[in-house]
């Protein structure tokens, strides 16, 4: 009577949807853009797949067609990760806390 792991993953998926919903629900409008840019950066966790794809070969055949797609995906995702987090950081500069008198 083992449960298919898919069911677990699906449960995790559904619960995460709820969390996404609650987490964002009370965001202040002035943070819309930073929030978008951070979610964007986070969504490039797809790089995990890209890495697997890129490394999925014996050492002699590095540039098989499927690996190449992996490498391309890595570049794209990396741009996104670095660009996304950094640009968010920049946007958030304006929200520095006021200094204590």
């Amino acid at each position, binding site marked *: 009577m083992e449960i298919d792991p898919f069911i677990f993953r699906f449960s995790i998926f559904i619960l995460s949807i709820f969390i996404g919903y609650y987490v964002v629900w009370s965001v202040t409008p002035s943070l819309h853009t930073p929030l978008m840019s951070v979610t964007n950066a986070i969504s490039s966790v797809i790089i995990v797949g890209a890495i697997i794809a890129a490394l999925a070969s014996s050492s002699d055949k590095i540039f098989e067609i499927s690996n190449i797609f992996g490498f391309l995906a890595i570049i794209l995702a990396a*741009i996104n990760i670095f660009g996304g987090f950094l640009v968010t950081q920049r946007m958030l500069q304006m929200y520095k806390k*006021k200094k204590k008198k």
Partner: protein
Amino acid sequence: MISANLSAIFYLISGILFILALRGLSSPETSRQGNFFGILGMIIAITVTFFTVGNFSNAFNYVLFFLVIGGAIGAFIAFKIPMTAMPELVAGFHSLVGLAAVFVAISAFLNPQAFNLGLPGNIKLASLIEMSIGASVGAITFSGSIIAFLKLRGIMSGSPIIFKGQHFFNLILGISIIVLIYFLCSSQSQSFFWSLIAVSFLIGVLLIIPIGGADMPVVISMLNSYSGWAAAGIGFTLENTALIITGALVGSSGAILSYIMCKGMNRSFFNVILGGFGGDANVSKEKSKDKKPVKSGNAEDAAFLLKNASSVIIVPGYGMAVAQAQHALREMVDALKKNDIKVSYAVHPVAGRMPGHMNVLLAEANVSYDEVFELDDINNDFANTDVAFVIGANDVTNPIAKTDPQSPIFGMPVLDVEKCKSVLFVKRSLSPGYAGVDNELFYRDNTLMLFADAKKMTEDIVKNLN
């Protein structure tokens, strides 16, 4: 190489860090911390993947190399881009995520062994479905984001592109996606896979072109959501918890965010997403034509700026009187004072439409006389003040009176509000005041326009101050 269990736990941790990242980003105080959590989550996810795959051969060097290349490009863009180009930047970034998802799906399709999905031409059914969905949504995200980017950048016209039968056509394409997936699964043939991707690209384009430029922020958030779903799809294919959690998180939060934005703009979510239904998009486009750019904000932004100031000067004008905002204003000042912020009122000699107009109203609202200063007594203080809160005043702040002898208000002493670190202007529009002279302060960098009835806006700010 680490055990599947251990890596699953680390993926869970990185998922949780992403949750904390989004949570942090929903309020200014915690936003920077949120970003940090996001970065941490990402580092963990990547590192764990390296160890899980455990392939530190030559290929690994290439991976690192490309990672650095991409990272460098990303960092470069992040530092060079002007702040005003943020929306299109985000759109551009989205397209990358979409394309990356497509690439990963292709790679999985071509080399399923690497992912434990079976053999080429004989991929597990569930995995095939999952990767098709991932690829398709990724492709839609990609092409849709490209269109959004072009529109925002101004390379493509911002006005909605509508043709007859558009919705019907989209429906056909949507159905064809399902049909293609069906045939792909039954035949495992590459050609269906490629067609699937091609049709998805087309759908992405068609979905976004009917949406007007003014609605782009909503669209970007929607595309954000798509990229999340694509990641989740791929996550199921790769049986990767981090991808599933993050994908679901991004997917739902993006959708909610676009819904919130629509609500904030008083637009119907469905109209925006379906596009081209109303004429609104046209109107807003026309309105913004030929205008110098102004920064406009809402009550929450204003509240944030005010709360973080240590000194504020209130400049009331005729608009405050029209809106009868004096009581609300007093409430606002009370709230600020509770936060230990120094607040004074600067009354210009001719503010309003009658000598002493402002005094009458401020007295009515029980503002103490000690807090009310005339121009000469307070004008030097602006330079040392954090925020000038200009409520329904206009002419009395217009620096043109100091500079342009041709101007009808030349020679009138004015309040030097622009010397404050930030200036908030509460008025309903960009239209001029009594003297009919445009006020260049509206377009300055340290000005935030708060377009609303003065009473309404002040009340909203009070709400946000607490």
